[in-house]
């Protein structure tokens, strides 16, 4: 995985260009809707980057990350609403509360593997939601907490946009920083073979708990920002399982265990789901079928590109380049390159489809 990244400097270049575009985009004037769509997308990416640490790199399929999102949101909500804190420090508290909670539940839960770990984390998240909903004196219970919003509008839009974008960069940087270090190696080793990792001297418990806590930190700060951004939080909304699933989908779409994966997947997921609500392809109103089509999209992606779109694109490009280089000089043109690329993509898709078949 790490080496796939090294070989594809292109991915990094594309990423930096994309970052530049996103950083400059507001200068060309965005509608409030575009601001919101992109800000939500960044927050989704951050939760995806969080999941990627435990799920992508360490190989522990956590299904309860929404608990951290909710705790982050509630930390901000309670501190701002009850204790009059200003917003920015609550982000840190939100992240730390989530990380602490992850460390606490991680100690027992990370002893489990596979499905059992997945279900245990799911259970923890559900139980956390119910407790927050029930614990009215502290959380205001199911009724939720309302927060004032930042004014004026343009300031708020840019503030949240760049804050969220900054968090995406932070998430990517954090990931990059760690995976080149011993800790990162230990995660990838654990994912490949936990017993072998132990025998090489890796304290897998510590590695996993750190991974889980960092995951929770990223997801928690996303939750914190969400709380203030949305100005309203309620248990059934901030602890919704769908949030975990969306983050996982984003990671899988882009490519698990890569830095660019959650970003590419988050962009793709948000664009597709937003597009489906509004678009009327060929004048056909998708109407209430937009959710169904999202489901079909998920199924197709899982069957055809289980390693994510980045893997698909880079492999296709590599293959096309190889074929291209073999061809006689006369036929080398952009057009033939694209054609080769398309053929390679088709082939890879067909291979992927058969890959896990019985």
């Amino acid at each position: 995985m790490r080496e796939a990244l090294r070989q594809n400097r292109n991915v990094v270049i594309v990423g930096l260009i994309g970052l530049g575009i996103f950083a400059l985009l507001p200068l060309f004037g965005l509608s409030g809707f575009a601001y919101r769509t992109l800000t939500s997308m960044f927050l989704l990416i951050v939760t995806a980057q969080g999941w990627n640490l435990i799920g992508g790199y360490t190989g522990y399929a956590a299904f309860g990350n929404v608990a951290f999102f909710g705790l982050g949101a509630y930390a901000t909500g309670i501190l701002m609403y009850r204790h009059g804190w200003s917003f920015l420090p609550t982000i840190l508290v939100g992240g730390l509360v989530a990380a602490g909670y992850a460390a606490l539940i991680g100690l027992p839960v990370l002893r489990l593997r596979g499905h059992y770990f997945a279900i245990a984390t799911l259970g923890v998240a559900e139980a956390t939601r119910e407790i927050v909903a029930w614990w009215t004196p502290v959380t205001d219970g199911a009724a939720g907490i309302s927060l004032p919003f930042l004014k004026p509008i343009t300031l708020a839009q840019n503030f949240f946009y760049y804050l969220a974008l900054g968090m995406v960069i932070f998430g990517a940087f954090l990931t990059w920083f760690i995976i080149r270090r011993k800790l990162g190696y230990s995660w990838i080793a654990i994912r490949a073979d936990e017993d072998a990792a132990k025998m090489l001297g890796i304290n897998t418990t510590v590695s996993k708990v750190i991974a889980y806590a960092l995951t929770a930190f990223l997801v928690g700060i996303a939750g914190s920002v969400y709380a203030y951004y949305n100005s309203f939080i309620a248990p059934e909304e901030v602890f919704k399982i769908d949030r975990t699933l969306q983050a996982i989908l984003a990671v899988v779409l882009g490519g698990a265990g890569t830095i660019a994966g959650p970003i590419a997947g988050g962009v793709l997921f948000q664009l597709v789901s937003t597009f489906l609500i509004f678009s009327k392809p060929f004048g056909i109103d998708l109407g209430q079928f937009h959710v169904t089509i999202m489901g079909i999209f998920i199924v197709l992606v899982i069957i055809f590109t289980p390693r994510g779109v980045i893997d698909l694109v880079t492999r296709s490009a590599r293959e096309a380049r190889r074929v291209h280089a073999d061809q006689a000089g006369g036929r080398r043109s952009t057009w033939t390159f694209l054609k080769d690329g398309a053929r390679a993509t088709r082939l890879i898709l067909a291979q992927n489809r058969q890959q896990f078949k019985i």
Partner: protein
Amino acid sequence: MSRHLLRSVSIGVILALLIVACQPAAAPSGNQPSGQASDCKITFGAAVSLTGKTAKEGGYVKDGYELYKDEINKAGGFKVGDKQCLIDIKYYDDASDPDTSAQLTEKLVTEDKVDLLLGPYGTNPTFSASAVAEKYEIPMIEGGGAGVKIFDRGYKYIFGTLPAAPFYLRSVIDAVLAKDSSVKTVAILVENDGFSQEVATGAEEYAKEKGLEVVYKEQYPSNTQDVSSLITAVKAKNPDMILGAGHAADAILIMKGLKDQKVNAKAYAFSVGPTSPDFRKTLEKDADFVLGIGPWTEAMKFQGTDVFGTPQKFADMMRAKYGEENYKTVPYQAASAAAALLAYQKAIEAAGSTDPKAVREQLAQLDLQSFYGTIKFSPEGIIVKPMGVVQLNPDGKLYTVYPADAANGEFLYPAKAWDQR
């Protein structure tokens, strides 16, 4: 060369995707009455749930909006200054999701440039959507969220045509006490969501105020599939009155459970459920005697100068437009939705423009007699309106039984015991 190529292709793809995402993908389309000449057009925006958890109620809300739109356009639209303006409504489906609701409201305001906003259905989506409306200082009248917390945030542009949640079950207590002052004990079953909590707390406080003893009040989780142990616990308390604050599915589950365990109370009432057609359809005879509440029922005797005039007329028009089968009883959500547009009509006509601030000022001082009764908002923006009590009569119909001046049927009390039916 190929590396360079890949790079340019990637940039192109990203740009293309961004353009798709950030631009309106399709021209706003609505059902414009064609061929009819009009001076101007007023566009409303609404993100309602057409799929997801509250698709059903979202559908009622949309139907209410649509009926009003059709009728007012037939009548020539709104009179703004000296112009006649037809109205149009742009809808999106928020899939019952508050995040989507906020995103769509943002789109309606900043891209579709609608003049004014209508609310979604459900307390949580309303929270999110109303925050966007307030941010842009565009009025939003919503007929689908009654949580008091929506209105105690100091917002100025949000108005609600449903009475505040804590008032929901009060009229039931009044109605029962008016009939039988010997009633002593109440049990309250509460779903664990914000709206139901407010309803239950309001009912509990009021019951105590009236000298009743609340012998049982417990929360149950949303999406619960089994309430048998709650019923067992309630039965042990032997209450005179059983109140439920939750959603229609829970109300049905509780009624089935009460019958299963032969729990006999003198009155059963639910905040949500009895007025929805599904309640009678699913419970059939077991729905008899159950009390429901509504800010509006078709039996109420209101009179207005609007396109509907009376509740009965509104109900008949709903049935004519959407079919007898679908609207055996017309749920109040449809009426409160239509009332939202009616409130806009009067405010816009008074303001002489659709300027958000001017409309907001007019809404704040609105005092209007209509098919929906008096439409008048409190300083917080929520309608001030007594709740009517309805009862499912063994003859299969739904009668309004309280207050007396709106009643069109006899309040059957106490409810017959299960084994005597």
